[in-house]
């Protein structure tokens, strides 16, 4: 370390004392006026931010996004109904496939495991991920950005199951039911549906493994639907029934909940809600910084590696760019290993900061269909599909 380095390091240490005030995310101690965030350790999970405890809704701590695959013990959790399954015995668990089919099936986990299996890397993101960042605010689970995760899902193709049961002519919708139930008879059971054409595509799976392990109880043990490229609301957990309908399914969770304005950005005005709405469907393009941490102190003249993740609804990420001048110019980053078009895609960029002071960096991704992110956030009544250009504040010393 020469004298110059020593001065820089000392300056960095001094600046660190001021940094929390600048980034607004300082240490929250008692008496500071802001209570510490509620975090709890649930079975099989690390300590996670609790959005709700009955039923559990838990947010993934940000550091886990530095890995391409989100570990099962840190994967976010979102249940809708209070009576969610905490005890399942595989000796009696069955997956029933019925409705408009030739041969109704009742399959055990062993029956499923005997069928051809496939593995796919796919992002599972809650429709309402980042809802707490909407302005004006929207009621609902107040997620920050941690209601998403990427995993390798292993299971049986949904279409293989449907073919085994034999779809009768005129199939319109395929309806999925998990073991979770409402706490009162009046609470609509959580059922979701896919169009029959979609259910017969190659991607949707009935998965029994996540990152090479059985699904955690809180993430849908013993089997869940995996709908690559689509929001997690369709990925029914603790799946127990698949029913083929010869007409449109119109249950509450499809007809009333999880609806978005039917325009390309799912955008509407709080003062004039769109009359035309549709069920939420494919993920839009997003990208994030995962390193360095927000508010980090970086030293002028010393190169550092910026990195993060990007993903979309299945076109695949074509390009990720970072701006150092509030979006006037953009520098293309290096993309990491390609785990498939539904996965997180790592990006990295070497950066040598020069001017001392507060710096705001921006990141935006573009997919292979040339869909990208914009600086103006969308708004909609459900607080769904936020995908604004994200920023990272650092202090250069």
């Amino acid at each position, binding site marked *: 370390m020469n004298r110059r380095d020593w001065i820089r390091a000392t300056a960095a240490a001094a600046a660190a004392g001021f940094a929390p005030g600048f980034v607004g995310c300082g240490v929250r101690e008692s008496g500071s006026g802001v209570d510490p965030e509620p975090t709890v350790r649930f079975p099989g999970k690390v300590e996670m931010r609790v959005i709700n405890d009955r039923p559990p809704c838990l947010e993934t701590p940000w550091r886990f996004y530095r890995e391409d695959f989100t570990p099962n013990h840190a994967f976010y959790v979102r249940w809708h109904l209070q009576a969610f399954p905490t005890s399942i*015995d*595989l000796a009696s668990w069955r997956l029933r496939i019925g409705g408009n089919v030739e041969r109704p099936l009742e399959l055990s986990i062993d029956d499923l495991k005997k069928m051809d299996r496939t593995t796919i890397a796919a992002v599972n993101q809650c429709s309402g991920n980042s809802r707490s960042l909407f302005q004006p605010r929207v009621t609902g689970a107040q997620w920050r950005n941690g209601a998403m995760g990427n995993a390798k899902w292993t299971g049986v193709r949904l279409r293989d199951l449907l073919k085994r049961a034999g779809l009768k002519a005129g199939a319109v919708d395929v309806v999925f039911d998990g073991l979770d139930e409402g706490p009162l008879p009046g609470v609509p059971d959580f059922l979701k549906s896919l169009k029959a054409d979609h259910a017969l595509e190659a991607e949707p799976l009935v998965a029994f493994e996540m990152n090479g392990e059985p699904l955690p109880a809180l993430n849908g043990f013993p089997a869940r639907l995996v709908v690559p490229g689509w929001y997690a609301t369709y990925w029914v957990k603790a799946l127990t029934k698949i029913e083929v309908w010869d007409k449109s399914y119109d249950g509450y969770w499809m007809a009333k909940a999880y609806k978005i304005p039917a325009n390309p950005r799912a955008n509407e005005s709080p003062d004039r809600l769109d009359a035309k709405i549709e069920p939420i469907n494919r993920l839009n393009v997003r990208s994030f910084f995962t390193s360095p941490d927000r508010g980090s102190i970086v030293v002028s003249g010393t190169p550092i590696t910026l990195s993060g993740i990007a993903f979309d609804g299945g076109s695949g990420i074509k390009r990720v760019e970072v701006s150092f001048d509030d979006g006037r110019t953009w520098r293309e980053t290096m993309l990491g290993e390609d785990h498939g078009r539904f996965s997180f895609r790592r990006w990295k960029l070497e950066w040598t900061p020069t001017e001392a002071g507060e710096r705001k960096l921006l990141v935006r991704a573009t997919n292979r269909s040339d869909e990208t992110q914009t600086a103006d956030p969308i708004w909609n009544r459900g607080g769904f599909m936020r995908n604004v250009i994200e920023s990272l504040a650092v202090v250069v010393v």
Partner: protein
Amino acid sequence: MKERMRNAGGFPLVATGALGILSAWVSYLGVRDYWDSSTPNVPEIVATNVLLPYEEVHIPDGPNRVVFQTSCVICHSPRLIFGQPTISEAKWLEVVNKMVATYGAPIEPEDERKIVAYLVSVQADRGDR
């Protein structure tokens, strides 16, 4: 003579070799599951039974606190409610109405107004967020 000696020595050698290969194969049968799997062999999970942690959520004092407690907490944790952003009285009424009309919460219309009063009061105490 020379030939006989060679045969006599050859047979045990072949037999020992064959026996060696046979025993290697037999022992492979025993360990092949471990040998062939690249991942460590873990016992298969046949059931799950999780005990959820219980974290008491503080329900602040306020008008009609008991009505709130007996009506709203049957179906979900109060944590979800106290985590909501600051919203208007009209919006709270809309939320409580939805609990009754959509989710079938057994709440009398008169209690709906009491619950809204409690929510607005608790929200005012904690300030905007």
